């Protein structure tokens, strides 16, 4: 394979910006109309992602050790879109047509190299998808509870129809039939339960098609689809250190799941949970947290508000409030929330002297449609 020549050829297509992906998808849909239904109405984000993903594959093509796990993950992840092995040749043909269309110096050698490379990529992805075949490609889950807690926040109870294994703190992708083919990431706010029920917290982002629909249109009796769990906030079994959990906004969900795990599975440990929000109305889960605190003597919940002068809750940014309590030097720390809040809190805790390897954080931003090649869920 002449990798430099392939890279030069790919660069020509990539240099056209939106034009090449547009050509690719139109070509694919015209030659295989059945593939159109696998994509959302608006293809704008899809086009961006296709070429950035392809670009990463091309960039790493001579480092197979790094590339193969990425392709395997992609292959497994594509099952939930309804991708079948039969779709891969169709995509390959359209990809080649696209690369040819945007290169004046297209040659039979290039065609041969690309065919070889694509066949390899497809084989790895198909094999990984096949290996995961004993797992469902997606799980249907019934919405059995839907409670609007604030003007833009709803708490949903989901009951998967088949067994769904995950760890407390992980995230999962979710699709509703109201917004077909748009997958978004949410974190269950509870550890796995015997009855399989999952609590999902959703904030309607302004103009966000999926989150608004989940808050305002979806109701009890609707069905959503779940993808396999992903993510890295998790308690490790080999430590029973006391926990310090700091949540901002919707970052509460995975941390509440950790609290739930301590309650269900132990080991016994003290847990301090700090939850920050702009004002009292944004503390959408206050009643449930207070109940948890009453039921569990080892749990202390502190709510903070940053823009609510008349509230009786603790005042200030949640990172600031955390530092007013403490010290936290012996704790295992988990921080989840919006980017600035996470950065601020982590910086303060480091300055306070908590060893960096004991601080775990996850940024909760509006989730992007799929995990990036590096497996990051949120932006």
């Amino acid at each position, binding site marked *: 394979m002449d990798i430099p020549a392939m890279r030069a050829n790919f660069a020509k297509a990539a240099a056209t910006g939106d034009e090449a992906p547009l050509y690719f998808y139109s070509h694919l849909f015209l030659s295989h109309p059945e593939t159109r239904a696998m994509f959302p109405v608006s293809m704008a984000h899809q086009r961006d992602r296709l070429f950035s993903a392809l670009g990463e594959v091309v960039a790493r093509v001579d480092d197979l050790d790094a590339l193969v796990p990425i392709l395997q993950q992609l292959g497994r992840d594509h099952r939930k879109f309804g991708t079948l092995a039969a779709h891969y040749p169709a995509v390959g043909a359209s990809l080649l047509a696209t690369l040819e269309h945007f290169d004046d110096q297209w040659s039979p050698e290039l065609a041969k190299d690309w065919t070889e490379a694509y066949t390899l990529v497809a084989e790895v992805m198909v094999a990984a998808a096949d290996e995961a075949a004993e797992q469902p490609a997606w799980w249907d889950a019934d919405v059995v509870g839907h409670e609007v807690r604030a003007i833009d926040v709803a708490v949903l109870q989901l009951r998967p129809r088949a067994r769904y294994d995950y760890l407390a703190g992980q995230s999962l992708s979710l699709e509703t039939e109201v917004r077909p083919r748009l997958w978004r990431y949410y974190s269950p706010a509870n550890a796995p339960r015997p009855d399989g029920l999952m609590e999902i917290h959703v904030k309607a982002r302004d103009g966000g098609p999926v989150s608004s629909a989940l808050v305002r249109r979806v109701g009890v009796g609707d069905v959503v689809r779940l993808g396999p769990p992903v993510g890295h906030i998790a308690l490790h079994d080999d430590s029973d250190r006391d926990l310090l959990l700091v949540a901002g906004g919707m970052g509460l969900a995975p941390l509440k799941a950790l609290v739930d795990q301590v309650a269900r599975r132990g080991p016994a440990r003290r847990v301090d949970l700090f939850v920050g929000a702009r004002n009292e109305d944004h503390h959408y889960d206050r009643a449930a947290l207070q109940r948890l605190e009453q039921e569990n003597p080892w749990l202390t919940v502190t709510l903070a508000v940053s823009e609510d002068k*008349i509230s009786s809750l603790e005042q200030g940014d949640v990172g600031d409030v955390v530092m007013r309590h403490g*010290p936290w030097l012996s704790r295992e720390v988990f921080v989840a929330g919006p980017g600035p809040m996470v950065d601020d809190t982590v910086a303060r805790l480091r300055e306070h002297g908590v*060893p960096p390897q004991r601080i775990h954080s996850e940024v909760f931003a509006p989730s992007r449609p799929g995990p990036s090649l590096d497996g990051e869920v949120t932006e």
Partner: protein
Amino acid sequence: MSSVQSESGNEERGLNPADVQNVRFTRASMMRPGYVDTEVDRVMSRVAEELARHIAEKAALRDEVRALRAHVEGLPVHEAPSDQAVRILSSAQQTADAYVAEAEEFSRQMTSEARTVYEEELRQARETAGAIIQSAQEAAARMTPAGADVPGRSVEELEEQVAYLKAFGSAVRVQLRSYLEALITDVESEWGKADPAALPQGPPRPPAQRSNRDGQPGGATAFSDNTVAQPAEEDVPATAVSHSAV
């Protein structure tokens, strides 16, 4: 009862999703109320969606039938699309993308404006309510004669004592906790100094806090040149002060 296209003479045409969306029910009279509007609206919009889905499914099935028929008759099923076709579909897709983006942007503006208004109104309402309550309390205080003492201790005195005890309790808890945390930290660091080889290499497999399984002979000597009191004394007053108000 409703205004489905009955007057226009195109009975040939099937019911389409737009027809369902456009159905308007006549208002029930004041004496005989009808269904809840929002419920009816929700059902109607689901019906429209379902109908749209069926229409799309029918089209897909027709395509499939055609492809299968072509296959049976030995005609090529997939011919490479012409550049012209690709161009036309591309521009149609771009148009669709632009509409979706515009709709999302519009929805974003509307909701964010609505939210701003909502939050401002709520804030004002809260402030007003706070002011009303405060003036009511002041009025109540003026109406109660100042010297009307209850036998024994007054409610206020009791409340004051309860508040004091609460603050005292939480201050004690904070002090105790600070002390314990400092103790744990110290034990951890001294444990490392006494026997560095016992420390885990690289990132962490922290010692379990409350188990003694890692305790070792060196621990006792390390503990005797005790530095525990220092951080405890420094930390405690500072945290305790900020807490006594609780």
